């Protein structure tokens, strides 16, 4: 049924990526998106008009690749994320601690990590309200990068629990 895909497709390509402890992190680079996928990204962006676009739809990396692999590749497996968090000295931020630039926000549901974003800045939306984090996200492996309020996320991610992780001591 998928014989044609095997014949036409090109082999997956990963790069050497390791944790601080030297353990290999499985990864693969995604191809650049086609016209239809780019249009779908534009359609999504129209729904979230407060997002600030940083980069149009692109391949190669996903949100985990943005956060932990400097936009060089995509990481897909849950087990690889645990490996990175452990080996790279990440810890969950305590409730009383203030989030800072560079901290990582994980959107999780029933043990699955749906998305990761990096905290960019703290913004005060109203005069008496507290400062809220704005984050940088790369959506999937072929959509673009956007800066947005950390709760202003696509519908599937909205019901998640949010964990903030940091590598600060």
């Amino acid at each position: 049924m998928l014989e044609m895909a095997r014949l036409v497709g090109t082999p997956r390509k990963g790069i050497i990526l390791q944790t601080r402890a030297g353990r290999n992190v499985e990864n693969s680079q995604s191809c650049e998106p086609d016209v239809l996928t780019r249009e779908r990204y534009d359609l999504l962006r129209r729904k979230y008009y407060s997002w600030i676009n940083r980069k149009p739809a692109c391949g190669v990396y996903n949100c985990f690749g943005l956060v932990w692999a400097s936009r060089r590749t995509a990481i897909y497996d849950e087990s690889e994320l645990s490996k990175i968090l452990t080996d790279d000295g990440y810890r969950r931020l305590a409730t009383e601690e203030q989030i800072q630039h560079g901290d990582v926000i994980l959107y999780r549901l029933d043990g699955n990590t749906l998305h990761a974003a990096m905290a960019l800045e703290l913004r005060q939306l109203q005069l008496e309200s507290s400062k809220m984090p704005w984050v940088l996200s790369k959506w999937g492996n072929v959509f673009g990068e956007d800066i947005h309020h950390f709760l202003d996320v696509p519908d599937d991610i909205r019901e998640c629990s949010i964990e903030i992780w940091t590598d600060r001591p």
Partner: protein
Amino acid sequence: MTLTELDSDEIAQTVFTLATPNAIYAILRARSDIAAIRRHLFDNAGEARRAIEEYVRERLIDLKPKTYFPHEPAFCALAVVLETLPMPAAEDFLSELSVLKIAEMPISPRVAALCLQRRREILISNTVAEFKVGPIQPDASSPRCIDRLPMVTTRTDIFKAAA
């Protein structure tokens, strides 16, 4: 309700905004439209193979080397639809997709592998349940008797329940 429903922008948005195959699989499984399409295929089993093959073939025409495959969200969704269907076509699609390692389709083979894993787990647990029988001789002192017959469950019933 036809397979073309899998081409929807909503399904594409789910696949394109979530990062891990596990998350995509979990969210797609919870969608009512996926369940409805599965039911439709189950009820029209006679035409299912032709419909699946035609759907896959028509989309693969758009597969271009070194460009992301635009129908990957639909293939992820199709894998989830077929996960519990007792059809050779479902098994063929999931088996073939799960071993596909091409750069143009990085997510759907991983989703298919999860579907295949669960499909096999269901089959194994149901097979065990199928052959579970009550004690033939519960008490050595009592006369030999079969107090109840094991319930007969066909494989179709199992998949019907799972679907």
